[in-house]
């Protein structure tokens, strides 16, 4: 997986545990991945699969306690972010890595103007004075296609619509030209047309600015449209990783295949009932010793209960954490 100097962010063996009353929840278990400059990495998985927690762990954004990043390495610009002091980490946040969050309605501070909130990272990280920061903030609003940018800097978040607020969030995340942009379900809270606009904007910005993007979502349609490479997460682990075309064409993990089946098709006869994956995602109260998907997997064998499958290479850039082999059509080989 890791191919040396090429990567901009390299994560290895990340483990995050939440301490709760009466025990622990192992939310992220030995997650390793890397991302190259300019690449858009999609992260999919159902709620509670550890997508957001993984990304928040990278920059120490989880409240601690209860969260604790127990193991792993997060290499960014030649150093391990998990070993950084809080003040070193703060220099990476906003400057090296930008964040966009799910709900633009609540992610902006309601009592400060949008201009103030965009200017904050500029003044902190780039040491800009007020005028320079204001000028840059205006450019940023223009970059994310907000009309009347100069005027709107003085407006408060409640004077913006949902889609516009998410644009503001993107402007804040992009303020200091980060190398990596982590977008945590940025379109989930938006309606479909606004979602399409935001996707279009991100696609455009990516070409303009050339940063690496981690795009967390549970919407496979979004992933298909935007990602270069996809990571599928389940039970706090990466169960499959593949280039986007390969993943949609030849899904190897039973979970990925089940996930793809749940997407209703707009062509052909209408299905009487939507496909679902039966059962609930696991609550991991200990380090998993068996395959976490086993209880919901139709193809489980004895070995799945005895050990947790490691990811193994099945094609170029394609690896899967499953003992069983499936052929192109998904049937057992």
């Amino acid at each position, binding site marked *: 997986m890791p191919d040396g100097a090429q990567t901009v962010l390299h994560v290895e063996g990340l483990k995050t545990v939440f301490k709760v009353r009466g025990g622990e929840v192992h939310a992220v278990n030995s997650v390793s991945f890397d991302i190259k400059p300019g690449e858009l990495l999609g992260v999919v998985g159902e709620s509670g699969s550890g997508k957001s927690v993984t990304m928040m762990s990278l920059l120490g954004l989880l409240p601690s306690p209860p969260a604790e990043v127990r193991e792993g390495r997060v290499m960014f610009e030649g150093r391990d972010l998990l070993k950084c002091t809080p003040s070193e980490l703060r220099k990476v946040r906003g400057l090296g890595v930008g964040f966009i969050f799910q709900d633009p309605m609540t992610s902006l501070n309601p009592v400060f103007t949008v201009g103030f909130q965009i200017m904050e*990272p500029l003044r902190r990280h780039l040491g800009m004075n007020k005028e320079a920061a204001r000028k840059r903030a205006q450019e940023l609003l223009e970059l994310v296609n907000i009309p009347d940018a100069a005027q709107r800097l003085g407006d408060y978040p409640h004077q913006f619509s949902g889609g516009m607020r998410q644009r503001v969030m993107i402007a804040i995340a992009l303020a200091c030209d980060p190398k990596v942009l982590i977008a945590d379900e940025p379109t989930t809270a938006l309606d479909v047309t606004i979602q399409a606009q935001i996707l279009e904007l991100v696609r455009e910005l990516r070409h303009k600015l050339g940063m690496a993007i981690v795009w967390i979502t549970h919407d496979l349609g979004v992933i298909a449209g935007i990602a270069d490479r996809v990571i599928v997460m389940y039970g706090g682990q990466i169960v499959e990783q593949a280039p986007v075309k390969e993943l949609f064409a030849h899904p190897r993990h039973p979970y990925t295949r089940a996930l793809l089946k749940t997407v209703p098709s707009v062509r052909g006869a209408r299905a009487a009932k939507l496909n679902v994956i039966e059962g609930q995602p696991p609550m991991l109260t200990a380090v998993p010793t068996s395959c976490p998907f086993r209880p919901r997997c139709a193809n489980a064998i004895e070995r799945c209960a005895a050990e947790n499958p490691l990811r193994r290479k099945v094609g170029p850039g394609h690896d899967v954490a499953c003992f069983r082999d499936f052929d192109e059509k998904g049937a057992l080989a």
Partner: protein
Amino acid sequence: MFTFALRRFLIAIPTLLIISLVIFLLLEAAPGDPLGEVPLTVPPEVKEKMRAALGLDSAWFVRYFLWLKQFFWVEPLNLVDYLFNTQYAEGMQRVISFQSRQPVMQIIAQRVPQTLTVVGLSYLIGVSIALPIGIYSAYRQYSWFDQLGTFISMVGFSVPTFFTGVVLIIIFGVKLQWFPSIYDTMHRVTDWQSFLVQVRQMAMPVMVLSLYNAAQISRFMRSSMLDNLNQDYVRTARAKGLTEKVVVLVHVLRNSLIPVVTVIALGVPTIFGGAIITEQVFKVNGLGQQLITSIHSNDMPMVMTLTFIFAILIVTFNLIADLLYGILDPRIRYD
């Protein structure tokens, strides 16, 4: 904003008039006789004359309108006369206390300084220690600091001031003899030595009242901070790489202060109302103490005027709290 303020101000006028009528009628209906203290040896016809001299022989509505006229017209004119050495109020009847036969406003003017120094100072001290305590308790929720702060504020809030006052008198006044247990109003601050005496005599009442105020406001501050600390925008602020100081003291605090400022503003009228019980315990002859003695002796003009002034203050600070809300929270626009 201006139209809102104006509208609220205009609404306040009928509100206050109704309040004054209600107070007047309540006092009217209350049992008690202003001449109750007059010895029984005084013949009834003399008593009748005394009653007439106080104006008590006319009907209640006549007395009510007379009071209104005196309060809203004669007293302001007297104030103008006092300030600018004019003679507009010459010969007009002021609101006179039954008890001391002195104009009520003069007595109030004598009493206000004591109340403001003691009660006002304790409010200021209470607020200024409550805010940092509330902020830090919330930021370190369930830490020993928070546990201790919560415990002390629970004690401060639930133990009445007449109890803490007496406990302090026993400890600091009787046993340790650090502070005098009786407040001397006649004391004048002229030099450093007399200033220290003033500080020492203020220490206990201020302590009692600050504890009470701080207990209340620190709880408000704490819970308001806790409400905001888990908000999404706090995470955004952290993700921008801002320091914890900026995240907490700029982003969270600004939002948390909105309800707390309202509570603080609404508490200001109680300063003027005086801490009735605490003033009584430490013999501070402020407004609260005056109100109590006037009620005891059925001094109706005094009680009526004091109560009505408190009502004005409460209505005013309600308005101020509303306006502050609009200034602090951009989502609220009164248009």
